[in-house]
């Protein structure tokens, strides 16, 4: 592996490389951001707040398809990590761009869903369910976009032969984005009772 890049990348006080530890801290803070929203959503649902029956208006097929897309993109990004550990830069580059493609497909489905809902009159101000729906899925989509931008940037670095460790770091982040969706899917698409 190359030793170019910030000093913090190559030292460790905890036994965990500093870059990886930093990403885990990001994940820990994200747990609280998304977890807080999910906790509030669950509490309002348990309380029988009006509007939550609108979960039946969301498309289970679209939600399930997007879950499949994110699970598959998680597979490709972890295969990129395995490839770069073998020193196969081209394969890692290809897998990263497959993951990027997964992100594009996910966002396209999301745009399709949003436009359909808005045309049907389900806007963010309609009731509490739709406020949660747009806030949480919108925040999640922003995380997807952020991950895609970072992936695109690091893919060219690894082709040039440096910062290989970043493939693992963006992978951890991307898996977390997948993990959040794993919980959003049943909340917004399946649990219609």
């Amino acid at each position: 592996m190359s030793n170019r890049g910030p000093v913090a990348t190559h030292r460790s006080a905890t036994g965990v490389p500093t870059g990886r530890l930093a990403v885990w801290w990001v994940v820990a803070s994200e747990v609280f951001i998304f977890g807080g929203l999910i906790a509030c959503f669950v509490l309002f649902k348990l309380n029988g707040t009006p509007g939550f029956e609108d979960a039946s208006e969301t498309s289970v097929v679209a939600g399930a398809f997007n879950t499949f897309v994110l699970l598959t993109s998680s597979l490709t990004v972890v295969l990129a990590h395995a490839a770069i550990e073998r020193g196969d830069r081209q394969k890692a580059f290809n897998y990263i761009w497959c993951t990027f493609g997964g992100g594009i497909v996910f966002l396209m489905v999301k745009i399709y869903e949003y436009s359909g809902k808005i045309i049907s009159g389900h806007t963010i101000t309609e009731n509490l369910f739709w406020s949660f729906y747009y806030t949480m899925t919108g925040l999640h989509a922003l995380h997807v976009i952020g991950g895609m931008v970072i992936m695109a940037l690091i893919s060219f670095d690894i082709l040039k032969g440096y910062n290989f460790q970043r493939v693992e770091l963006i992978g951890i982040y991307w898996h977390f984005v997948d993990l959040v969706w794993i919980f959003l899917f049943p909340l917004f698409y399946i649990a219609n009772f």
Partner: protein
Amino acid sequence: MSSTHAHPNYVKIWFWLVILLIISTLGPMLEIPVITLITAFGIAIVKAFMVAANFMHLKFEKHIIWFLMLMSLTLLGVFFFGVAPDIMQTEGDQWIDCISDNSCVEQRL
């Protein structure tokens, strides 16, 4: 720097995740709330654990990462039970339930 552990069979893990996704999608079709709860949220927890353990390599990480995650989940639990009474309790002299009658916006104005 990178992890030095052996990589698990990722395709096999992905395959099981897809199987679980299919079950969680089909479960609610039985229209039994308990089954829906188990297939939707029970399977979501299993899937999340599989992703964290295998794809995020949590099972290979040092204890400090586990503590970090446990700490954030514990704080989340504190938040959940701290906020719960405010949302779930709707009785009391000072309680104004503006959500039920959709008058929250008017009250802010």
